[in-house]
């Protein structure tokens, strides 16, 4: 499905080269729910942005369904079946929730289908479908709408960057349900979620631990989860709040 070969990403900080990602080699298979975890600043979000085409790697190659997409634009990657949910959802003045869902589904979405996606992310559809995607929505509401756009896009590969960030404890219960249901209906696709949350890690088929720009652990949930529980890579919701 997706293969990252020798991916590195450097930035210049005060004239000094800083390595954010160091020669990563990762393969994501079909029909898998993969969670990437690791401490803050380990390069997880950069990795997600490299997959979506928002960040261009300093070196390395990206293959998607055996096609080299390293030089493909964000748009081309999206069209070829890559979806990406922002950690900080973008606000728009004037664009409504329905507009965004229609764009995501290539413009053919009926009102009823759009409402269905909103219901799936726990939003009362009638109340939200005509709302503007602007600052009048709370962080949690924006986050759920962001997830709904990815559901509506129906990508082969969907990447979610910290879907739990900015979501309250109450909504988080719902969020785990959403991801559970995505896992059930994976339909030969691949879901990659960047998360620290134990409940999200528990859904994973595979867990990848990224630290200081390198993969330090990779394997099945049963193999990796016991090793990282209680560390910064996997926290319970309450621990995170404290």
């Amino acid at each position: 499905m997706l293969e990252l070969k020798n991916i590195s990403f450097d930035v210049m900080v005060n004239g000094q080269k800083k390595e954010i990602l160091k020669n990563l080699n990762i393969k994501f298979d079909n029909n898998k729910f993969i969670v990437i975890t690791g401490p803050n600043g380990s390069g997880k979000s950069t990795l997600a942005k490299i997959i979506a085409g928002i960040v261009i790697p300093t070196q390395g190659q990206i293959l998607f369904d055996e096609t080299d997409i390293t030089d493909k634009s964000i748009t081309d990657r999206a069209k070829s079946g890559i979806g990406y949910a922002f950690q900080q959802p973008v606000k728009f003045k004037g664009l409504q929730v329905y507009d965004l869902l229609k764009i995501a589904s290539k413009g053919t979405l009926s009102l009823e289908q759009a409402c269905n996606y909103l219901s799936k992310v726990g939003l009362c559809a009638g109340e939200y479908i005509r709302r503007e995607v602007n600052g009048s929505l709370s962080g949690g509401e924006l986050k759920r709408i962001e997830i709904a756009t990815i559901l509506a896009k129906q990508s082969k590969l969907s990447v979610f960057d910290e879907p739990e960030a900015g979501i309250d404890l109450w909504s988080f219960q719902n969020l785990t349900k959403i991801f559970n249901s995505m896992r059930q209906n994976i339909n030969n696709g691949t879901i990659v979620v960047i998360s620290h949350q134990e409940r999200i890690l528990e859904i994973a088929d595979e867990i990848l631990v990224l630290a200081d720009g390198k993969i330090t652990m990779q394997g099945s949930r049963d193999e990796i989860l016991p090793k990282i529980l209680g560390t910064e890579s996997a926290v319970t919701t309450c621990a995170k709040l404290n």
Partner: protein
Amino acid sequence: MEMNEIQKRLIAEVADLHDVPMGAYNFRANGKLAGRNTTANIDIQTKTEGSGIDIRIKDNTRNESVHIPVVLSDSGYKEVVYNDFYIGENCDVVIVAGCGIDNCGNQDSQHDGIHRFYVGKNSKVKYVEKHFGSGTGTGKRILNPGTEVYLQDNSVMEMEMVQIKGVDNTNRQTTAKLNKGAKLVVRERLLTHDNQQAVSGYTVTLDGEGSTADIVSRSVAKEKSYQKFEVKLTGNNRCSGHTECDSIIMDEGKILAIPSLEANNIDAALIHEAAIGKIAGEQLIKLMTLGLTEHEAEEHIINGFLK
């Protein structure tokens, strides 16, 4: 009603009309009356002195509408028209105005429409005004609307002012005076492109106790176009007023926003917000991750912004 295809197309653009509307109407094409209808409650008379019409709406007229679109399709035609609306008490009406100019020639075409609204006590008016220009000629399409609004006690005026395409030069000036408990709501949408110039000014005086005004302008200046937005809000009593100017600049567009607030009473609460900037990069990226090209993303963002 006699109109050619170009004129019918202009009418559709500015008044969303594809056929003769229900209710009262007055169609003006190239300075001549092209059709008129009055109702039991709404009378339209041609002014005996000067150019224009008087529209009189009886007290207690509810759920009725008046359409007064104007089209210019002869290149080089220039006119100044005065339309006066006398709206009685306890009314609830919709007034749709608007002007479309098609100029295929090399001479400037110009319509200066001066609208005066006298809104009676407890009446509610929704006013929609759309301006549109088309045609491939080198002659300019010029529209200079002047609007004066006088709101009696507890009356409400909602104004939707839209100019999206094809007008080369516009200077729109709106003044309003509000009595006790009156309310004015303005939603302006403006898009300029090429070398177009647009000036939009609002002078709103909140004279009456408990009067409120909410004026929101959203605009986009593309290519080499220029816009000036000037709003002056004066509070002379216990009142509240809010103005907002929110603009997107693209290419080599230029925008000047001049807000001004004047409070002459300790209980006058006036707010102004203004923001000018280009389309946020993250908005483009978000829509591109949903499969749009950068150009398509821009169009969606602007269409949404001006909706």
